[in-house]
């Protein structure tokens, strides 16, 4: 049985008009990502990485070509339809967490469900608590965002990305702001989610991370330069254990 394609890009192009010049940020990108894959998308700045992420996240639409998210064509969708699609199908994890200030962990995680009428307040809270437990923050439910460390905040953000049970989790440099140890902790979490069958796309410029994912796509000048499956996935948990013990001061 063939696996279901969660993401399908068909010759996606995206042009920007900068003054009188047309910048071709994506010059015909095609690939499929199947359910349960953990894909890293790499590239230097200017490679079209961010533009591709915006396309995948339904924050932007292609100039030409088609993007199918979970089988749904996105290109001709209106803004509000894409908002709904993001709400149901995508979980975002950002580099700088983007938690709401002065707001508790649970409330932050509840946020996507606030825009989903199918959840009432009790169901919302239950789902948020479950997501926080899944990222190991079951004991930090009522902590406010300014009372948490970077790693904890990023885990809250991951819980927020999980809470709507999305078709795909999109992480944008999700370890970029974290120290090595915390980065590995977050990677452990992503590998755990991968093992549970989640589809994860991790956009990064850090080549190390590719070793922990199942597939690596490299972009350059708006085109796919490399697309390889990783047959030797390293364990982030082992790497974490191999790190020198944290120094308490």
């Amino acid at each position, binding site marked *: 049985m063939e696996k279901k394609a969660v993401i399908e890009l068909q010759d996606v192009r995206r042009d920007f008009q900068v003054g009188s010049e047309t910048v071709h940020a994506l010059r015909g990108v095609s690939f499929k990502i199947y359910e349960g894959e953990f894909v890293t998308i790499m590239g230097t700045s200017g490679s079209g990485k961010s533009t591709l992420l915006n396309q995948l996240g339904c924050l932007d639409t292609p100039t030409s070509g088609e993007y199918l998210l979970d089988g749904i064509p996105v290109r001709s969708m209106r*803004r509000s339809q894409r*908002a709904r699609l993001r*709400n149901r199908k995508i979980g975002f994890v950002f580099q700088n967490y*983007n938690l709401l200030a002065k707001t508790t962990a649970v409330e932050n995680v509840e*946020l996507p469900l606030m825009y989903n009428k199918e959840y009432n307040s009790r169901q919302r809270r239950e789902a948020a608590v479950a997501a926080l437990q899944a990222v190991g923050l079951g004991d930090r439910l009522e902590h406010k965002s300014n009372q948490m460390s970077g790693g904890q905040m990023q885990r809250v953000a991951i819980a927020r990305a999980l809470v709507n049970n999305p078709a795909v989790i999109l992480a944008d440099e999700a370890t970029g702001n974290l120290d090595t140890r915390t980065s590995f902790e977050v990677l452990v979490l992503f590998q755990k989610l991968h093992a549970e069958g989640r589809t994860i796309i991790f956009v990064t410029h850090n080549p190390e991370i590719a070793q922990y994912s199942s597939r690596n796509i490299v972009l350059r000048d708006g085109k796919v330069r490399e697309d390889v499956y990783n047959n030797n996935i390293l364990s982030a948990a082992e790497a974490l254990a191999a790190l020198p013990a944290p120094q308490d001061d």
Partner: protein
Amino acid sequence: MSYINLFKIAVKAILSNKGRSFLSMLGIIIGVGAVIVMMAIGQGSKQSIREEIQKNGTNMLTIRPGADMRGGVRLDPSAMQTLKQVDYETILAEAKFVRMVSPEVTTSGQAVFGSNNTTSTCYGESPDYLRIKIWDVEEGVCFTEEDVKKSAKVCVVGATVVKELFPNGQDPIGKTIRFKSIPFRIVGVLKSKGYNTWGMDQDNVIVAPYTTVMKRLAAQTHYNSIICSAVTEELSDAAIEDLTTILRRTHKLKDGEVDNFTIRSQQEWMDTMSSTMDTITIILVVAAAFSLLVAGIGIMNIMLVSVTERTKEIGLRMSVGARGLDISNQFLIESILISLTGGILGVLFGGLLTWGCNAIIGYPAVIPAWSVIVSFAVCVAIGVGFGYFPAQKAARLDPIEAIRYE
């Protein structure tokens, strides 16, 4: 997103910026307070004017010379001299719905007693006058029909005249004062009425037989007006109709000619005064309402700042699935909440000012219930009106740029 959640977000946003929110509410508080107190003063004045007029008897009718040309220009001075003795006598003899009649001739001048003097107005009337006005003689008696016939130089005086001319507490009855050099013997003192709403001293009067005033003081053969009393208030209109017929006949007016006199009932008086007060109130309220406009602009300003400050939050909300409508509702509800809270505090502030008006200055002011409702409605309108532009600005943000905004 549900409105309950939007409301919670708005409350949180307002509370997290207490000082700023209060300052932007302050404009609304002052504006609504001013509107409320202006309306209260208008309403209070209207009520006290009505009471004032009612004190003079609700069935009083006033006949004045000249056509009814409110606000127009009367060109012919002879038109002001149309009320004559024949009118009075015919009314006395024929008018069906009229109980009491008094011609009225007035003249102002100086009253002197001994070394004291005061400026006063002398009303020439018939003895019916005090009964029409429901005005009692406190000491002594009123002059009589006999005095009218003889043009006797007698008078009744108001309390202010007594106070000015007899400062040492002498008994004024029987004393002779001079008004415009003509001696008048005081036969009675009127009960004090105090000041009316216009600030006029109603006790600064000298009432004398109209015949005396016409001959000795005014040297005129026409009346300034004729006042009469309808049998009952309900019969006022019938009385006016009857009097009109009589006066048109005595004035020999042909069909198609306009009346050269005007008959007004107390009701009409009240209506005129009410509409005048309404106009004044509207002017005051409009002036106060301008401060609400300024307050609205203040709210718009603070909402624009709030949108800019929360660009990143807006970007996040959009990326997790908020539609433009959700975002614009969020900011609209926040601005409505600021303005409505300001409105509630403003109504309380207006209530306080109104209370101060009554208790401290002693000016009658009554808050009409509808003005409170209107204030709340206006506040919601301000919240929507001035919150719309910032809310739209927020809703139109590009989530990609918004989430990267620093």
